[in-house]
């Protein structure tokens, strides 16, 4: 913490010197002074807040501090600077010593173009790296899929350490707590579900009275943000006391959790399947429950309209439609439904993590629709159109009016680096079979304020970066966008190969 104060002291002194120089050059009025001072104070405060929060072990608070105080400080400082540069008169400097001016003269005569340096890496080596990356991804998928199956017994035993456990059925997998045949039924029926980010395993504890007594989360590869929402809403408790013959239909006898609709729908589907299996096989009941209808309400209509509009150039290119569309994607796809596509969704397709179309129509429109758009039309309609994070980046960039860029060397390296990050994220996903582990996008944090550990810091830097650089995240980091671009390129190559033949 001592170093932080020292660093903050240096920054404060630097800021004071900057303000002094600025006031010497421009006639600052009260508005410019307050904007510049407030901006600097907010930025310094956010740094102190973030460091303090990290030291206390609360990364979420650090991230929120950086976003609320830091980003607003940067916005205020930038606007105050722009106001001063454009509206405030400059104080005329008297040119005193021409000798000094000569000393700082800049040579602006066009320099001769330097001959391009020969690349250290030979073209054969780079081709080998590219194909090596593709082969390693295929190996990772195979290894991931072939790795040992789920140890349901271990999962249940982990939850009921002190009780005896007997497996009484294989399909569906059912365990009895206590000795087989002893006492009233106390069964744990295993069911799997397919969430937005990946699969999960639930244990449904059913007693001899034909009622659900507990829903036990045994394992999950779902996006942690959605799991947290469900846990916070104590969603599992809503099923306690329900009969195995109930309908279990979202919107009829159970409700969804706002902001985690797909996950709750998947959980209800898994519980319904398990309960109805128990009703038929164990309790010998005749199926009288309602059939699950297609989920097609306002949410699905909104997403469908947004998706179709992404094919109309007038909507996403021309003003004012462009802005209306952008606000709609941020509001609906982002904040309302939190359904932004991540690299986990694309990789999940390869792993076979595909939820049912009846209940997860939104997932199908966005993920399958985008992939089909690429396969059939060769167009990526998601990036720079439907993506709500792009909308946020665009608006931030409009506020700042700045289009900075890293140095050319860094720009050159950035292409390889984003490919490496995409490769690493896919390898993690395929080997762990857990899409959320490799999805480093800050979308869930942005739109539902949920994240894990270091992930919290990706959001503020991505937003601050987007403030200074045009589409900072999309250009340099987005693994989802780059995966979709690779698909477009792959399709083009395939078509070329077929045409040449």
């Amino acid at each position, binding site marked *: 913490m001592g170093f932080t104060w020292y660093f903050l002291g240096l920054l404060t002194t630097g800021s004071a010197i900057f303000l002094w120089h600025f006031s010497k050059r421009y006639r600052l009025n009260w508005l410019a002074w307050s904007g510049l001072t407030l901006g600097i104070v907010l930025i310094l405060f956010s740094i102190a807040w973030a460091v303090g929060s990290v030291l206390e072990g609360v990364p979420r608070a650090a991230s929120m501090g950086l976003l609320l105080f830091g980003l607003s400080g940067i916005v205020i400082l930038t606007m105050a600077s722009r106001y001063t540069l454009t509206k405030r008169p400059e104080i005329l400097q008297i040119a005193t010593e021409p000798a000094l001016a000569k000393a700082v003269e800049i040579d602006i005569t066009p320099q001769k173009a330097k001959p391009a340096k020969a690349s250290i890496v030979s073209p054969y080596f780079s081709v080998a790296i590219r194909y090596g990356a593709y082969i390693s991804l295929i190996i990772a998928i195979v290894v991931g899929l072939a790795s040992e199956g789920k140890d349901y017994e271990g999962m249940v035993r982990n939850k009921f350490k002190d009780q005896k456990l007997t497996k009484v059925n294989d399909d569906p997998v059912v365990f009895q707590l206590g000795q087989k045949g002893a006492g009233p039924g106390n069964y744990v029926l295993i069911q799997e579900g397919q969430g937005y980010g990946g699969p999960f395993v639930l244990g449904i504890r059913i007693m001899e009275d034909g009622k659900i007594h507990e829903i036990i989360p045994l394992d999950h590869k779902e996006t942690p943000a959605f799991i947290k929402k469900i846990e916070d809403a104590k969603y599992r408790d809503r099923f306690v006391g329900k009969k195995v013959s109930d309908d279990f239909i979202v919107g009829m006898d159970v409700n969804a959790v706002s902001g985690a609709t797909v996950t709750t729908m998947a959980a209800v589907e898994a519980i319904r399947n398990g309960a109805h299996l128990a009703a038929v096989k164990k309790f010998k009941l005749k199926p009288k429950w309602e059939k699950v209808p297609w989920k097609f309400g306002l949410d699905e209509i909104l997403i469908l309209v947004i998706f179709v509009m992404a094919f109309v150039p007038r909507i996403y290119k021309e003003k004012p439609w462009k802005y209306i569309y952008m606000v709609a994607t941020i509001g609906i796809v982002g904040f309302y439904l939190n359904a932004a596509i991540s690299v986990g969704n694309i990789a999940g397709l390869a792993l076979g993590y595909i939820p049912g179309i009846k209940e997860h129509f939104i997932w199908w429109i966005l993920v399958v629709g985008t992939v089909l758009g690429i396969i059939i039309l060769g167009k990526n309609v998601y990036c720079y159109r439907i993506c709500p994070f792009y909308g946020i980046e665009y608006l931030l960039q409009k506020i700042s009016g700045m289009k900075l860029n890293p140095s050319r060397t*860094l720009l050159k390296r950035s292409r390889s680096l984003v490919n490496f*990050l995409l490769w690493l994220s896919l390898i993690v996903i395929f080997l762990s079979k857990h899409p959320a*582990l490799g999805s480093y996008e800050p979308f869930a944090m942005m739109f539902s304020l949920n994240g894990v550990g270091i992930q919290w810091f990706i959001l503020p830097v991505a937003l601050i970066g987007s403030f*200074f650089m045009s589409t900072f995240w999309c250009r340099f980091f987005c693994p989802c966008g780059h995966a979709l671009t690779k698909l477009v390129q792959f399709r083009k190559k395939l078509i070329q190969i077929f045409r040449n033949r």
Partner: protein
Amino acid sequence: MATAEKSDAKNQGGELIGGTILAGALYIVTVLFVLGFLWQSIASFMLQ
């Protein structure tokens, strides 16, 4: 070249360099955080 023009050229050069450094720093910090996240994921997967 007039002194004012030279001064402007110098300032623009300064702003350009400052902007490039800022952009580069933001880029590198983001790369480090992304790598940190992936490293955290690999570690949690290996420890499972």
